[in-house]
């Protein structure tokens, strides 16, 4: 009896049933199917839905949340969580608004440098002091919000003077139709996808979330990966914050409250496991768009009040995780 025979024989027994395969496919792609379904409904019901203006509008409105969710995806893939993104977004907005008159480059790089640094601190404390990410980033959320409020005297920072380059970031158009934030979103997700799927660092992110002890014993430097993902999350939250400030024309210390929860919801709805190790940036994009399109449809319907939208948002989140959970169980 040769090895291969025996192993195959054994593996055939452990092989996965069709049912399990379908289950795992739906778990990973269910959100995409739902997104398509919702789009079909939108197309059938509302003339205004499938117009370039409306679709670009949906994308633009969700571009900032998309960036935050992209960073959150990296963190959640390692099995962590980042509650500080909303506050970091505010910090970046405030810094950028203060520096807006020095031009886009200065404002953008200073703001992102600051939030990357704060994200780095998150990662350092989590990795070195071995405190749960939930607590560390909760503390960072409180502290960063405090910093943003303290630095501004709890007032919004108005962007004075016509600063073309800075305004362009949030309000500009490429070729007269493509809003800059959408372009940034697309580029960021493209880079995110390449990094996660085609670089060693990306595979390490998956490895840490899959089984950190195994990854450590395989010789990975887990601390470095952990620190890096929180820094990335901080950087992307910062980028989103600067775009928001540019769109609004103010840097608000209270911006981004609750965004961490929206971002987590989008990541989870996309199909990334909160326990880490499994998921993708594309599913996060799908999650963001699914939520975005659903609310776009509500708006087109025009009769649903914001509070009912909240209720529905919660119900959708619950529905998706329950369904995903059932599907995972099949496997």
């Amino acid at each position: 009896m040769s090895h291969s025979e025996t192993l195959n024989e054994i593996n055939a027994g452990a092989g996965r049933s069709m049912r399990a395969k379908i289950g795992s496919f739906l778990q990973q792609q269910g959100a995409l199917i739902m997104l398509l379904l919702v789009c079909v409904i939108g197309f059938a019901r509302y003339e205004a839905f499938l117009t370039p203006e409306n679709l670009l509008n949906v994308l633009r409105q969700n571009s900032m949340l998309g960036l935050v969710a992209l960073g959150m995806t990296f963190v959640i893939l390692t099995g962590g969580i980042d509650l500080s993104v909303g506050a970091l977004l505010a910090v970046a907005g405030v810094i950028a608004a203060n520096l807006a008159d020095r031009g886009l480059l200065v404002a953008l790089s200073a703001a992102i440098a600051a939030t990357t640094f704060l994200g780095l601190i998150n990662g350092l404390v989590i990795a070195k002091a071995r405190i749960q990410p939930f607590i560390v980033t909760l503390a960072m959320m409180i502290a960063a919000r405090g910093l943003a409020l303290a630095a501004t005297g709890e007032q919004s920072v108005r962007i004075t003077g016509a600063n073309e380059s800075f305004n362009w970031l949030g309000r500009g158009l490429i070729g007269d139709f493509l809003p800059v934030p959408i372009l940034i979103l697309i580029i960021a997700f493209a880079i995110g996808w390449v990094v996660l799927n085609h670089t060693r660092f990306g595979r390490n992110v998956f490895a840490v979330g899959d089984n950190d002890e195994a990854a450590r014993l395989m010789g990975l430097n887990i601390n470095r990966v952990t620190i890096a993902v929180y820094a990335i999350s901080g950087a992307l939250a910062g980028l989103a914050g600067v775009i928001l400030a540019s769109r609004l024309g103010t840097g608000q210390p209270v911006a981004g409250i609750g965004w961490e929860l929206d971002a987590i919801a989008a990541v989870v709805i996309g199909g990334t496991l909160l326990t880490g190790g499994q998921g993708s940036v594309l599913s996060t994009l799908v999650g963001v768009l699914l939520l975005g399109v659903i609310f776009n449809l509500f708006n087109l319907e025009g009769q649903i009040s914001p509070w009912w939208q909240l209720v529905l948002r919660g119900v959708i989140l619950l529905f998706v995780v329950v369904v995903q959970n059932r599907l995972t169980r099949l496997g």
Partner: protein
Amino acid sequence: MAEAITQPVAAKRGSSSFADYAPTYGAAAALVLLILANVFLTPNFAALDNFRNILVQVTPTMLVAVGMTFVIATGGIDLSVGSLMAIASAVAAVSLDYGAYPAILAALAVVTLIGAFNGWLIATFKIQPIIVTLALLIAGRGVAQVISNGGQLIPFSNPSFEFWGKDSLFGILPVPVFVMIVIIGLAIFVLRATIFGRHVIAVGGNENAARLSGISVNRTKIMVYALSGLLAGIAGLIYTARLGASDASQVGQTIELDAIAATVVGGTALTGGRATVIGTVIGALIMQIITTSFNMNGIKFSYALVIKAAIIIFVVYLQRPKSH
């Protein structure tokens, strides 16, 4: 590995069960230091009125944090508490016409049921508590606004309801503080001495072992989330009664984070299996005293946030499990 367990252990006398329930000394020391520093540095801090004020203000957070302690003891988390406060507030406000006590009962029944629903989802579908209660946080705020006609401020005048927020017993003890003390006492007793308390910690300490020892893990989980809902409801009602109006859009916003912070600073492990109500009380007081003393010294609230964050990290760092 087995060897770690079988290493000879110097017989320790000190590891009594009291130590399990007692707050960690770090948090207690921090509280004492904080009070002492304020007595010297903050004018009028030591006044009776001020202490009373601090206690009244900490009441909602304290009640929510006590419920959170039970939830966290099972290894769970409840993010929905703020929204449950709002729902309780809205339900009571719209049903005050039927009398104060029917309104209170209705409000508490509703939030207890929603809490139980949280627990049911978590227990039967095995979904992470953070996601389930996040969904309820989002949906619950919407529900509260629906009940209150879009989150409008609903003022009311109902002395027997407002009694629970505004009056004092014997002219010195504010009713909310009285309620808080009673509930803290009950919670300490329940966690320490009752079978329910034991089951809660067993579920958090080792769920499999608890199940194989005949404990109904699902029922225990449903009960802790129901309890958390009930206490959030009481917090919401007291807050509403004190305000004299229901503000479903604002009541309890981000209180879940304050409650989690208070619980964790007090020494309850986020991983479950270790819980201390006294610790939570200390944790909540620390957070409140920071806020109050900053206010009294005319320092902006925003700086207090930074200090709170630093304290959370510092205390949790001191308490983290030690390993070789």
